[in-house]
Every structure is written in structure tokens, then in C-alpha cells.
């Protein structure tokens, strides 16, 4: 018992640190428009039990279904009752689990040293992922990316175990996790393909299973079944299966079209290097340098896992960088690979004390950066991960609406504009709140919130005296709030 504790307490500490970083003050950052949109969709599922996959504007269903038990456990049964902590806990818990899965991937039990990295490098890899700024930031964010990373790591761990033991249950687990990946986001095949190509590139010893075809079939069936269950809303919406395939048309258009999210090829690598914006420096140079050193070690050494990580990460970097559509949350897919490589570089150092000093220093620098992006400037536009983020002003809309409705309970709150997210989240549960993308004939109300582009048209249709004030939706996007004068 004591020996077991001694063996695992460092991993438990890393997991606890990961959990704290992912859950501390989880509700503090204002909701991003994408988070709000998905939280409102979750609210519908929570209230009605209905979910229909939408291939045009949303990703896969697992995020919403994963949030259900958390909402139930926290006693929240309606959209109005939901809060930021509940919805973000999905990513926070998945992100913490991902850290442990990376450790498991780096240190398969009873595996020969040539196939794993060893206990301390596995711990280092987990620690690097636990404190990596993009991993922490998007583990506190109600979007699919962290869930996809975790399901990918789970699939890899299961596949690795199957490879070693030959047990069909591991094949089944790998398939189920692959199905969860697919049911999380349309980009899942990229990571599955990258993992398979990397596996072929490193030429590992043959798997021990004597029934490989059966196991492969079992895994494929599990993957299809799991994905089909989610996309069909567990049988309630069979059209979701067709839409799951149609999603690739939308994804292709988005990835290569004029989406407004096109960025240069070096965008993702720059997130891991150095950038100075508005006087603030965001960098991960030590971690990035260690990862690059790990790639060199991977080529030079015979460590299969390290070489696999190098090839897998290179493929993912290339694929993401060559796609014109880029958003910073995709950077989380690079973290596990970089973490394994950085740990591999430390393990290759001849003296463990030097490795410890370098490792601790790199972790400390990463933690400083994480505190900056996740806690000090979580919604600041200079934060490279706070992408077109809502400004803190969005927190002021609800008190205004509540006050307006108490003054004039029979009049509506109107939100008029081409852009209004995340306001439906903040005004959830309030009566008589309506949203118009263009000014309606009757614009009067207890409170009229208007995006800047529609202000002239709305003012022309208002009757009576209104006081006008300004609140921001996000940096550079200002709303005008019309409040009836007493």
C-alpha cells in the first residue's frame, strides 16, 4: 500500500494541479459567443430531452450529452438554472482526465522501456500538459476541442494496450473512443489518420493479438455504433446520421473558403513561440525548445513512442498550418505531442539533476504564462487564446434587463442587430425578451439593445423619450442601449 502510494502520489499531485487550474474561478470569464450558443443548445436538451445535430453551425453532440449529468448532479434542470461553472466543468474534467491519459500513454504498465518513456518522463509529460496555457485555457471553455483531445488520448491508450496484450476489450475500448472522437467534432479523422501514419512510420513490433482482423472489426463496429448513437440523438433523430456526413461539405467550405478566420501558416507555431501584443508578452519558448529538442532525440534514439509522437505531431502541425481556416483552440491538439517530446528531451539528458532543474524551470515559466492567459487576462483581446472574445461589459446587460422589466413588466426587451451573441445566454430565463436581426416595425420596449449598425433605423422607429448608453459586445463592437426616460 505504502509502495503504491509512493509510486503514484506524484501523478496524483499533477492531476490535482491540473484540476485546480481547470476549475478555479471557472465562472469568472465572460461567456464567449460560441460558448453561449452551445450552452443555450444544451439548455434545450436539458429541458426537452431533444437534440438534433446541426451540421451547418455546430459540431458534434458529445459536448451537450456530457454536460447533462453534470447539470443533473448540480440540480440544474432548465436553461435558466444552468450556469457557467456547470457547462465549463465538462471541458475542465475532460482536460484533467487528458493529463492522466497522457501519463498512461507515456508509461504503459509492464511495458519494456524501449516502448514507453519511463515513469519520471511520463510524469514530466503529464505535468507539461497540466500547465500548458492552451490546454488550461480551453479546458475552461465550453467548446468541443478539449473533449476531442481527451477522446483521442483515450483511443490511443486503449489501442496501445491492445497492441501489447491482444485483449479484445482494449480493441473495443479503442473503437468506442474513436466513435466518441467522431461524435465530438468533424475533424476527428485527421487525428486518427495522423496516428495511423505515425504508427506506420515508426514500424513497431507486431501486435500480440492472434485475432487481429476480428479485433479490428470489433473496434470499427464500436466506433460506428457509438458515433451513430450520438449523431442520431440515440435513435430519436435518424436524419442526424445523414447530416453527420453532410457536415464535411460545410467543413470543407469553412476550412478553405472566405470565413474571415484565415491566418498565416506559422500561426499555430507562433502561439508556442513568442509574441508581444499591447505591451503583454505571451510565450512558451522553453516548452517549445524542449519539444524541438525532443524531436531531435526522437530521430536519434530508438524510442518508438517518442518517434511516434514526433511524426504524429509533425503531421498535425502541417495539416492545421496548411488549412487556411485557423482558430487558436486548435492549438490544444499540439500540446500532448509537444509534452511527450519535451519529456523525451529531458529524459535524454545525461544527468537527472540537470533534467530536473530544466524541467522545473520550464514548468514554472509555463505556469506563469497560464496564470496570465487563464486568470489575469482571460477575456483580453491581447490574449492570443481569447479569440473574438466577449468583453466584460456583457455582464451588465442582465441587470439592465431585469431592472427594465421590473419597471415595465408588460413591455418587451428587444435585442436588435446582426450580432447579439452571447446575449441570449445572459438574458436566459427572463420573460418577454426577443431577438431581431433587422429592426422590426415596432421597436419600442422596456429596454432596446441595438447593435451599432442598426441604431439609426431603430431610433427612427422609437416613440417617446429614451436615454441612450453604450455597452460593448466584444472589442470594437459596441451596442447602444435605449432605456425609456422616466
Amino acid at each position, binding site marked *: 500500500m505504502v509502495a503504491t502510494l509512493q509510486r503514484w502520489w506524484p501523478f496524483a499531485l499533477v492531476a490535482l494541479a491540473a484540476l485546480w487550474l481547470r476549475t478555479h474561478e471557472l465562472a469568472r470569464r465572460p461567456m464567449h459567443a460560441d460558448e453561449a450558443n452551445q450552452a443555450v443548445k444544451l439548455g434545450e436538451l436539458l429541458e426537452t430531452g431533444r437534440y438534433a445535430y446541426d451540421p451547418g453551425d455546430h459540431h458534434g453532440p458529445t459536448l451537450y450529452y456530457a454536460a447533462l449529468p453534470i447539470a443533473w448532479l448540480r440540480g440544474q434542470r432548465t436553461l435558466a438554472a444552468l450556469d457557467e461553472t456547470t457547462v465549463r466543468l465538462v471541458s475542465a474534467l475532460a482536460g484533467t482526465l487528458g493529463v492522466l491519459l497522457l501519463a498512461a500513454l507515456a508509461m504503459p504498465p509492464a511495458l519494456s522501456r524501449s516502448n514507453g518513456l519511463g515513469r519520471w518522463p511520463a510524469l514530466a509529460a503529464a505535468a507539461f500538459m497540466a500547465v500548458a496555457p492552451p490546454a488550461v485555457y480551453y479546458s475552461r471553455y465550453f467548446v468541443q476541442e478539449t473533449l476531442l483531445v481527451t477522446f483521442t488520448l483515450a483511443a490511443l491508450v486503449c489501442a496501445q494496450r491492445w497492441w501489447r496484450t491482444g485483449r479484445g476489450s482494449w480493441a473495443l475500448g479503442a473503437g468506442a473512443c474513436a466513435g466518441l472522437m467522431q461524435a465530438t467534432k468533424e475533424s476527428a479523422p485527421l487525428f486518427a489518420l495522423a496516428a495511423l501514419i505515425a504508427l506506420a512510420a515508426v514500424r513497431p513490433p507486431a501486435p500480440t493479438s492472434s485475432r487481429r482482423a476480428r479485433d479490428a472489426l470489433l473496434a470499427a463496429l464500436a466506433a460506428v455504433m457509438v458515433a451513430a448513437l450520438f449523431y442520431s440523438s440515440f435513435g430519436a433523430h435518424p436524419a442526424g446520421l445523414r447530416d453527420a456526413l453532410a457536415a464535411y461539405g460545410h467543413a470543407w467550405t469553412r476550412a478553405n473558403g472566405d470565413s474571415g478566420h484565415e491566418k498565416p501558416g506559422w500561426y499555430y507555431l507562433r502561439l508556442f513561440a513568442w509574441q*508581444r*501584443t*499591447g*505591451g*503583454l508578452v505571451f510565450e512558451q519558448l522553453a516548452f517549445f525548445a524542449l519539444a524541438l529538442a525532443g524531436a531531435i532525440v526522437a530521430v536519434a534514439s530508438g524510442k518508438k513512442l517518442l518517434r511516434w509522437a514526433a511524426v504524429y505531431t509533425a503531421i498535425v502541425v502541417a495539416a492545421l498550418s496548411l488549412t487556411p481556416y485557423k482558430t487558436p483552440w486548435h492549438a490544444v491538439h499540439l500540446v500532448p505531442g509537444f509534452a511527450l517530446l519535451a519529456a523525451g528531451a529531458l529524459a535524454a539528458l545525461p544527468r537527472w539533476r540537470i533534467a530536473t532543474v530544466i524541467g522545473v524551470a520550464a514548468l514554472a515559466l509555463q505556469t506563469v504564462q497560464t496564470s496570465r492567459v487563464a486568470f489575469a487576462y482571460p*477575456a*483580453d*483581446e491581447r490574449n492570443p487564446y481569447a479569440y473574438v472574445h466577449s*468583453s*466584460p*461589459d456583457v455582464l451588465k446587460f442582465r441587470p439592465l434587463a431585469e431592472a427594465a422589466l421590473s419597471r415595465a413588466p408588460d413591455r418587451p426587451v428587444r435585442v436588435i442587430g446582426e450580432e447579439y451573441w452571447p446575449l441570449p445566454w445572459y438574458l436566459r430565463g427572463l420573460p418577454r425578451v426577443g431577438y431581431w436581426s433587422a429592426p422590426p416595425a415596432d421597436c419600442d420596449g422596456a429596454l432596446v439593445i441595438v447593435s*451599432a*449598425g442598426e*441604431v*439609426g433605423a431603430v*431610433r427612427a422607429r422609437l416613440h417617446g423619450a429614451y*436615454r*441612450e*448608453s*453604450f*455597452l*460593448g459586445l*466584444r*472589442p*470594437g*463592437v*459596441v451596442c*447602444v442601449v435605449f432605456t425609456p426616460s422616466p
Partner: protein
Amino acid sequence: MNRSFRFLFALLACAALARAEDRVPLKLDLPKPLFVGTPRPIHLANLEPPTAGKRPDLLVPAGTVLLSRGKPVTSSDSLPVIGELAFVTDGEKSGVDDTYVELGPGAQWVQIDLGAPAKIAAIAVWHFHSQARVYHAVIVQVADDAAFKTNVRTLFNNDDDNSAKLGKGSDLAYIETYQGRVIDAKGAAARYVRLYSNGNTSDELNHYVEVEVFGQPVK
């Protein structure tokens, strides 16, 4: 004839008075616009519509000079994370990185000590002009003492919900541009100038690229 003479006399008297109170347009050295792309069109009745060209001049007494250049600046946030308080009066108004000071979240102020009492004609303030944003609760006060206890006068206040707890104001909110905001101080005599704000429509922070105080030293 007599009436004509009286009219002429009155005209000359007015002209003489006008000479004594000579008023000239306030000359402001403006930084270049930093807006990139097309700013969103905002046409609002309660603030100046974004002007395509030069805005109307503010007339100030002849002999008005810039009093604040290089003068000491203090703040409710004495250790700003970004920039230095000295940036507020250093004359650099470009608005690019390293030319503005960033104060912490919530209501904050900067204060300029003119060194001696002055008749203040105008105060120009540039918070941050590389993006369309509105600063909340902009309040400008002058006083005779550094603690703002004696003879405090409010020259501008657009804090319509009293978030800064200095009383509601009825002045107009405005969108930041490279032209800054020029406040008519109407000759208020004071040594200290204090400017408040309470975050902005983009974030909770408070920024100052430059503040210029124009007037004449009290003799």
C-alpha cells in the same frame, strides 16, 4: 445722424471689448488615425457623430498655452502593468504600443499637477484610439489641492449610472478616435486636474495615451 453716430460708437465699443477678450481657435497637435479597416457606422444623437474631417474648433483666450507637458502624474493605480504614468503628459499621442499607460480594472483616475494654479481653458484627453470603444464614467475634475478636497469642480461627467460614485453626469458618451476629446474648462482656476474612467466597452481596464491641459498661469 445722431442715431447713426451712436450706432457706430456702439460698434466700436464692441470691437474694443472683443479685442480685450480675444479668442482664438485652440490648436491641437493631432496624432494620425490608427483605425484600420472600415469602422462600424454609428450615428447617435447623444454623441458627436464620427466626423469625416476636422471637428469644429474650440475657441480659447489668446495667449493660451499647453501647461501639462512633462508635468508629474499620479494615479489611483500607482504601479501600472503596462506603460508608465509619465506617458500621460509626454506628448506622444500616436496610440501605438508603448505609448499608453494601462490602469487596472474598475474606476481609476490619473491626476496631473500643473505645478502652480492656472486658468484652464481646455483639457484634451486621448484614452485609446486604435479601436472603436467607449470609456465608461469619464469624469474630469479640477481642484486646488492634490487630495481633491478644496474647491473641487467637475468639468465633464458622463457617468450616467453613477458607477464611479461621484454623482450622475449628463455629458455625452463618445467613441474614442484619434481626435481625442476636448473639454471646455471655461477658464476654471486650479492647479490639479483629475480624470476618471471605469473600464470601457472592450475590457475592464483604463487607458491614457495623452492628456493635455491648456490655459494660462495665474499671475
